């Protein structure tokens, strides 16, 4: 009896060892590239996306152009966010990433530097002509390659309560200087109210504001990266908002909380610096204020400027794990440039298309229901979208964003110096890049 037991045990031990060794071997050979392009016969592709209703849009493809080319796409709906990037990279490590993924623009350098995205420059035809240069540039990362096709964009705008601005005799600020004066004027007239809040829980907002001011957080020269998170432009933005928080001209509570929803809904906060997708957020956050808001261009740093930043937006990319890259790229191009596809995307998924020609067609001829008082909402939005400043994303945006949330969150709460937080963000980002093995020039 004990003997049999021992034998069984040693077998178990052997299995455990074998499994562990297998795991090591696997990690070693995880990223083997397969570049076989088998284009004959029917092709089936999988697509990870978080856009609601994407399955219905893909049905249009499967019944139309896809049927003709024998390319069938299957949607696997995912949750959006940074965690999806991790999931894609984990799957890629095992060689099991889907053929197509949805990725936010700032995630593209991370995915590309991990060799997860394929260069589809040869397969997307004349797609480039459908997009504004600043938008397209985000998918090339400044190279000759094309790593994704732009899907939606989030040009930033200024949203304000039209009725309350009138009530308190405020004018819509055209510059940030006027924005600060408006905040102070409101505090004088109604000490309980705030023009808006500075929130550190969505880094995309601050990144967009810095982008508008002309910041270039990540650039390359030769083989080296340059990180400019605490450059002069970003410092200007940080000092501006830090000053407003410190003097108490605006609130310092985070957004997207029940308290924030309530503040918007009851008119305690009367403006919001946001992006083109704000009507959707306001619909749930402040349902009682329908028809009372209006949208205007973002305030400028000098009277003669006309630029905006972007907050959000995503693209469709083809992975290096895909065995049918050409077919996948064909679908990605169709999805984001075809009129019917974009119409369906707007209707089912509520996206604001990156493609310039789609920004005024179909779903965008009428204003969003929440903004029925502003009939030319989407005309104005399309004009603003054209002024989007170029962006410069790097391979560890997630690290910069995490430090932003911590450092600026604390600074906003304590009303302390924002530039200190900015320096911390720069230092963390550079340190992480060096740790990852990137060449960084100081």
């Amino acid at each position: 009896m004990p003997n049999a037991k021992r034998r069984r045990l040693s077998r178990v031990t052997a299995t455990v060892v074998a499994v562990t060794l297998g795991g090591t071997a696997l990690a070693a050979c995880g990223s083997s590239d397969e570049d076989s392009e088998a284009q004959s016969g029917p092709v089936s592709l999988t697509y990870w996306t978080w856009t609601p209703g994407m399955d219905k849009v893909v049905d249009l493809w499967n019944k139309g152009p896809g049927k003709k080319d024998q390319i069938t796409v299957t949607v696997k709906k995912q949750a959006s966010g940074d965690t999806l990037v991790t999931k894609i990279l984990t799957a890629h490590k095992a060689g099991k990433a889907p053929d197509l993924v949805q990725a936010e623009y700032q995630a593209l350098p991370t995915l590309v530097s991990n060799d997860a995205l394929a260069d589809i420059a040869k397969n997307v035809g004349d797609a480039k002509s459908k997009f504004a240069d600043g938008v397209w540039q985000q998918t090339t990362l400044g190279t000759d390659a094309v790593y994704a096709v732009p899907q939606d964009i989030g040009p930033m705008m200024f949203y304000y309560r039209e009725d309350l601005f009138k009530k308190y005799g405020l004018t819509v600020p055209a510059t940030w200087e006027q924005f600060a004066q408006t905040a102070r004027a409101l505090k004088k007239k109604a000490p309980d109210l705030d023009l808006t809040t500075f929130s550190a829980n969505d880094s995309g907002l601050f990144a967009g504001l810095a982008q508008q001011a002309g910041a270039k957080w990540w650039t390359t020269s030769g083989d080296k990266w340059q990180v400019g998170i605490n450059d002069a432009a970003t410092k200007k933005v940080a000092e501006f908002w830090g000053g407003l928080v410190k003097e108490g001209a605006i609130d310092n509570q985070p957004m997207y909380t029940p308290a924030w929803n309530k503040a918007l809904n009851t008119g305690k906060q009367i403006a919001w610096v946001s992006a083109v997708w704000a009507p959707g957020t306001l619909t749930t956050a402040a349902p009682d204020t329908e028809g009372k808001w209006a949208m205007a261009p973002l305030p400028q740093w000098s009277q003669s400027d006309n630029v905006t930043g972007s907050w959000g937006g995503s693209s469709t990319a083809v992975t290096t794990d895909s065995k049918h890259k050409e077919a996948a790229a064909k679908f990605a191009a169709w999805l984001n440039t075809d009129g019917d596809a974009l119409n369906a995307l707007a209707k089912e998924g509520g996206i604001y298309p990156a493609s310039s020609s789609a920004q005024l067609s179909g779903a965008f001829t009428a204003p969003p229901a929440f903004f029925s008082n502003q009939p030319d909402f989407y005309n104005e939005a399309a004009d603003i979208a054209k002024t989007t400043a170029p962006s410069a994303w790097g391979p560890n945006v997630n690290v910069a964003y995490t430090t932003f949330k911590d450092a600026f969150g604390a600074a906003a709460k304590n009303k302390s110096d924002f530039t200190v937080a900015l320096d911390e963000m720069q230092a963390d980002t550079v340190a992480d890049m060096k740790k990852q093995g990137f060449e960084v020039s100081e």
Partner: protein
Amino acid sequence: MSSLAVQKVPSAAGATGAAQNRPPLRSRIALVPTITLLLGAVYCLLPVAWVVIASTKSGRELFSTFTFLPGTGFADNISDLNAYRDGVYWKWMSNSAFYAGLGALLSTCVSAFSGYALATYRFRGRETIFNVLLAGVLMPPIILAVPQYLLLAKADLTDSYWSVLLPQVLSPYGVYLSRIYAAAAVPGDVVEAGRMDGASEWRIFTRIALPMMVPGLVTVFLFQFVAVWNNFLLPYIMLSDDEKFPITLGLHTLLEQGANTPALYTLVITGAFLAVIPLVALFLVIQRFWSLDLLSGAVKS
């Protein structure tokens, strides 16, 4: 735990009311633990109460009315949840029940076998195995999720029901608990007596030891069921097809739909509320098995 604290409430109220009739020492002793338990109960129950009440609110009421004022939208929320993508919510719910039910059952079997073996048989390396298990108890399962994914990818099992079930079958904590319980509840004399009477080892285990271990195994089952039901990271990494998602992942995708679409708060809250009900029901049903402890008096010492 919380039900214990709730039962304390009337007695605490009675204690202050009848304070004059009783020796003051007693009430002074009872007061501190009662208050502590009450605070604990409030801490645990307040979020639950929030979910219950928030699930009755319509989207319009959710953030605009007083937090603990029940709303009017419960029926609408349920029917919206029902209608969302042709009732995919119920698919998630049944997936969760499948993962948690079968996973906990298999895990309990494995724990019972190995715990009994570790407690009853003496063999070389027994303590080593047990120590490795102890180390396994201390290891958060989250750390293992990515290596497990890479392993299962090798076996081509990712994005399948197996990929979520298999890694959760072996629970170090379950084996540990079973061993401790078997050592305490199954006396060596009983096993020896069985051997003397000529019963096979299998028969001794199934007919004698297993019934004695039931309360411990019920605990293992419950722990494991709750652990699988609440597990997020493992299925998140393993699964990409949302028809196979458990409820935790499903609700997460409902919440994270990108900035373009209004967040489906009401659906998520109602969904979370409904997802708690099976767990509560399970606890209420299985709770009675815990009191079977007293049966373990087979040997006089």
